[in-house]
């Protein structure tokens, strides 16, 4: 794909107003979640003997926001394409093969989500005044980006299924936002009792969020977490690609 750079540029070339609104929304969302979970909840949590609440929740908020962005981008993208079949024809009737089209779409969503990840993290660090080791921050970003692959593939599959089952995408988003919140973004998975706790602990999003927190705060991560997220990303990419290919042949 010699023209890959041109294609990516044509797809993500920011329009001043649209890009400005995306940045503003990201900053506002980050600040609001910071206010709720660090400023607000931070007043209560010391009473239940939880220390360093700000530091602990910070990576969770960043991971939560950026996962929501990646999921929504891919879900809305597919949903948008489902109801404008010409859009997929516009790309399918070019020299690119389906796997190349899919790779580019995934890469573009990853680039956009990566931009949001950096912005959210920087805003959180600025408003909280927390200082983390730069290497830890880079490792956190890289790990999150690896995990965003499966989050966005999950979005692709959900978008196709929602369109097929004629479910409005908003309902899927509400459900997934709650699910992400459950997966250790704010409350550690170890706090959930019994079977629920086990299910949450081994859910890939939890492994992503909690592994990200370990990296940002301590600079290290369990090798199993890393293999789990990488493996899940690879497998979900191929499953989503297979579903996408079937869907484009309809």
């Amino acid at each position, binding site marked *: 794909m010699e*023209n890959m750079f041109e294609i990516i540029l044509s797809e993500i070339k920011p329009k001043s107003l649209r890009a400005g609104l995306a940045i503003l929304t990201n900053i506002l969302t980050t600040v609001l979640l910071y206010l709720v979970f660090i400023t607000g909840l931070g007043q209560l949590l010391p009473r239940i003997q939880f220390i360093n609440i700000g530091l602990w929740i910070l990576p969770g908020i960043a991971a939560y926001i950026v996962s929501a962005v990646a999921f929504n981008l891919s879900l809305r993208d597919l949903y948008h394409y489902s109801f404008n079949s010409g859009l997929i024809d516009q790309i399918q009737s070019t020299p690119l093969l389906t796997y190349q089209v899919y790779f580019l779409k995934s890469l573009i969503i990853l680039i956009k989500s990566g931009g949001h990840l950096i912005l959210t993290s920087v805003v959180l660090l600025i408003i909280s005044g927390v200082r983390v080791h730069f290497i830890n921050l880079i490792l956190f970003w890289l790990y999150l980006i690896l995990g965003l692959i499966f989050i966005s593939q999950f979005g692709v599959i959900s978008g196709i299924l929602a369109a097929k089952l004629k479910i409005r995408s908003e309902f899927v988003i509400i459900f997934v936002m709650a699910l992400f919140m459950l997966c250790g973004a704010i409350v550690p998975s170890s706090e959930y009792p019994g079977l629920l706790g086990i299910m949450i602990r081994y859910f890939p999003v939890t492994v992503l969020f909690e592994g990200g927190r370990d990296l940002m705060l301590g600079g290290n991560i369990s090798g199993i977490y890393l293999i789990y997220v990488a493996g899940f990303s690879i497998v979900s990419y191929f499953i989503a690609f297979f579903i996408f290919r079937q869907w484009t042949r309809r």
Partner: protein
Amino acid sequence: MEASITLKNVSKHYKKKYVLSGLTVGIEKGSTFAIIGRNGAGKSTLLRILSTILEPDNGTVYISGKEISKNLRDIKKIVAYLPDHDIHDPWLTGGENLRKRAAYLGIKTEEFQEKVMPLVEMFHLEKELSDYPVTYSRGVKRRLDIVQVLMGNPEVIILDEPTMGLDYLVRTILFKYILKHKGEKTFVLSSNEFSEIQTIADRWIVLDHGQIRFDGTLENMVAQIELPFFGNIEFQHGGSHLTKSLEHVPEIKEVRDLGKTVQIVTDNVLDFVSVLKKINLDDVLSIFGSSIHIEEFLNKLNVDEDF
């Protein structure tokens, strides 16, 4: 003549229903080939298979001597496809849509002016490029999509109902483009307008329930089937007064009162001329006629099972 496209026993079905059934046809290189048929006849499915977007369930398709399924990458480089629906992103302006498509086609930024702008000018889109397609009329949207399809300078151009929504001027521009590239590019198009097919197609097929019911040229068709002549006489104050008086004229097979216009069906054009001689033409605004009417032709094909 060298074949540009060859279909061998191509079938496609949806939900156990055959949309295309064992099609075998060859399309000459550099020719203009038309596919006609009623809605649901399988025209769009056939065009999507030719454009490589859809795979047939059975059979083989060759383009420029290469089998599609084994040479997809090479074939996609030479084929362009305009579906019967929009192929632009409503969230991008016309210009952004063209630049996006150019990037996918491998047209570099510095080549855009040279390769794309002449087509933009040809289809009078210069003023619309900075607007979003949602503000476009149906015809302007179609022009934008036609430019997207032609901009890669493809060898094989597949057009599904290309003139849908186009005004007379742009229709003529498109036909001129097709005629200009005759012999050099292969055009495959579908249309319900038989006058268009007559104007530009070298050869055409009639699809009916996924099968080819006619394959040939205008000359073949006229030689093989007797078609009635349809003469339309438009009156200033309506032609109902004439309808009854013409009912017993021997040359006339049928008279249809269409308000201001009276449609007279005769066996041939000469019979229509003799009918004209019997009519007072003082109140007449216009007279026009055609011996080939797509609906009548399809009806005739359906009645004559051996055709």
